[in-house]
């Protein structure tokens, strides 16, 4: 039996999170809005109107291009992509064709197995979205709210070699988009859409064979699932001596199967030409410098730095750089604490992450600020509170917004390190336990743990255990 290699390229549409649409001042995000409420003469293509490019779209596009190591064109052009479809009121989509915002580039995808897959970027351009249509019997209903919402279309080379790699690409792309703050990148809401081109070839071949295109997949799990199904199907076809046809396939989430949409008999003919209503887009060096002035350290770079600088295990570093706010939080807490970064990581991975998951907040929205977390860690280290008080303080600070110190003071949570208070209790315990004292003095010194426990219980856990042990030893060895 032949061994096959899987060849996958992904075409993604990324909805930028600007406030307004790409060519008009209508609100861009209509997720919670009624149909046809965020539209104007420009985005509905009424006669006599002119598009005006949104500055923020260019800025976000530049950030993405930079993160993809693409070459940014100082002069780019918009083009008309002509096709006739009811969700496109102008009869054309304003897109970028041959001289788009950026060219080339790549994204490195670290695989859980340990290797890195470099995925080349073939296309990166800005364009406007079309409206939404839905079936209503033998008619269609059209909502134009989405018309003119800014997108970046990004197409990879045929560089991915498994459904897993495709899923990891999307996971890393989503992380990056959120990190850069340019898209909410929520696949369920269509902020990140993905079509997959899939083909197989005998292992060792470098030819590209007929590919199929999988469309309408709305989650990363489904992309993976759909590609796996399609690869199996193509292998079955080839093994049976049949050809793979250049089908477009639709993923049916409920039935967990692919459906043939239409075969590409007629080559798409979009008759692109320069958009006469828009001037060429000229970036100046000054503007570019301004956009890139705050360009952040990217997640994978930050992850390696966390490993080398803070000696974190890779697992911790990966989770702590999963989201930018969280990684900023970690780093601020480490600086404020000035102790072992791994301790900060433990608190974050065990307690703070749970807090974030339960509340739906991001790390920068917590009332438990990095400074407060550092304060708690310092109090535990100094023996002012015990570890379990420290943990319970996390919740208390978060719900009240008060500083850990003031909560410890008003609630009396601090450990008693007053020598005389502990001594009084210790003397009482020793006097009340003649049998245990005898056994201890006969040589069973491990009993000290029991004595300390008694003192701690009497003082409801608030004694400094080290000090209590020290005083007890003193009394018992008299």
């Amino acid at each position, binding site marked *: 039996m032949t061994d096959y290699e899987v060849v996958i390229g992904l075409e993604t549409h990324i909805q930028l999170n*600007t*406030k*307004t649409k790409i060519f008009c*001042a*209508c*609100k861009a995000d209509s997720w919670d809005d*009624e*149909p*046809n*409420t*965020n*539209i*104007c*003469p420009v985005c*509905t293509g009424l006669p006599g109107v002119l598009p*005006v*490019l*949104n*500055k*923020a*779209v*260019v800025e976000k596009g530049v950030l993405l291009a930079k993160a993809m190591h693409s070459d940014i064109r100082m002069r780019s*052009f918009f083009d008309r992509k*002509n*096709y*006739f*479809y*009811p969700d496109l009121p102008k009869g054309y989509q304003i897109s970028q064709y041959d001289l788009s915002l950026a060219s080339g580039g790549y994204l490195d995808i670290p695989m859980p197995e340990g290797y890195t897959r470099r995925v080349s970027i073939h296309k990166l351009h800005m364009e406007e979205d079309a409206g939404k249509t839905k*079936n*209503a019997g*033998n*008619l*269609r*209903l*059209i*909502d*134009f709210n989405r018309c003119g919402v800014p997108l970046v279309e990004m197409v990879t080379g045929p560089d991915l070699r498994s459904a897993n790699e495709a899923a990891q690409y999307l996971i890393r792309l989503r992380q990056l988009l959120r990190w850069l703050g340019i898209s909410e990148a929520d696949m369920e809401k269509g902020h990140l859409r993905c079509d997959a081109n899939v083909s197989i070839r005998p292992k060792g071949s470098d030819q590209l064979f007929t590919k199929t295109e999988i469309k309408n997949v709305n989650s990363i799990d489904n992309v993976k699932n759909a590609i796996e199904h399609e690869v199996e199907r193509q292998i079955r076809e080839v093994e049976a001596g049949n050809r793979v046809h250049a089908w477009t396939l639709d993923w049916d989430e409920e039935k967990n199967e692919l459906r043939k*949409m*239409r075969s590409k008999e*007629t080559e798409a*003919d979009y*008759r692109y030409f*320069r958009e*006469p209503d828009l*001037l*060429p*887009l*000229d970036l*100046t060096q000054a503007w570019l410098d301004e956009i890139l002035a705050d360009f952040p350290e990217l997640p994978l770079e930050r992850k390696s730095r966390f490993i080398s600088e803070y000696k974190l295990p890779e697992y911790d570093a990966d989770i702590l750089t999963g989201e930018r706010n969280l990684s900023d939080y970690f780093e601020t807490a480490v600086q404020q604490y000035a102790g072992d970064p791994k301790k900060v990581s433990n608190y974050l991975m065990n307690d703070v992450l749970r807090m974030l998951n339960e509340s739906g907040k991001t790390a920068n929205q917590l009332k438990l600020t990095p400074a407060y977390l550092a304060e708690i860690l310092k109090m535990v280290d100094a023996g002012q509170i015990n570890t379990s008080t420290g943990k319970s303080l996390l919740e208390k600070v978060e719900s009240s917004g008060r500083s850990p110190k003031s909560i410890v003071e008003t609630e009396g949570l601090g450990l008693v390190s007053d020598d005389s208070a502990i001594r009084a209790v210790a003397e009482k315990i020793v006097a009340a336990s003649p049998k245990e004292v005898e056994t201890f003095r006969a040589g069973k010194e491990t009993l000290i743990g029991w004595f300390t426990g008694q003192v701690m219980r009497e003082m409801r856990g608030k004694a400094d255990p080290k000090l209590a042990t020290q005083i007890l030893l003193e009394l018992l060895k008299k």
Partner: protein
Amino acid sequence: MQLTIQEVEHIAELAKLDLSDEEKEQYREQLSSILAYAAMLQNVDTGDIPPTASVLPERSVLREDVVQEPLSPETVLQNAPHQKEQQFKVPIVMENGQ
């Protein structure tokens, strides 16, 4: 420059137009003469002239990302021949319902 009937049919298909045989012949003649007229431009030697996308003075025209009032849905839909649930209602144009 004479278009073939197949070319006319392709253009009609792109515009989702259903043409009769007479219309195809009629448009073939009309489109051919329009193309022939425009083809006169090919006689000009443009070898050393960079492609021109716009004849307007070069300047950057960009808009700040600030939301403005949209049209009301009533205004948007007032000329729609058919509507339902505040949406435009149109016939299905693709053979498979897409």
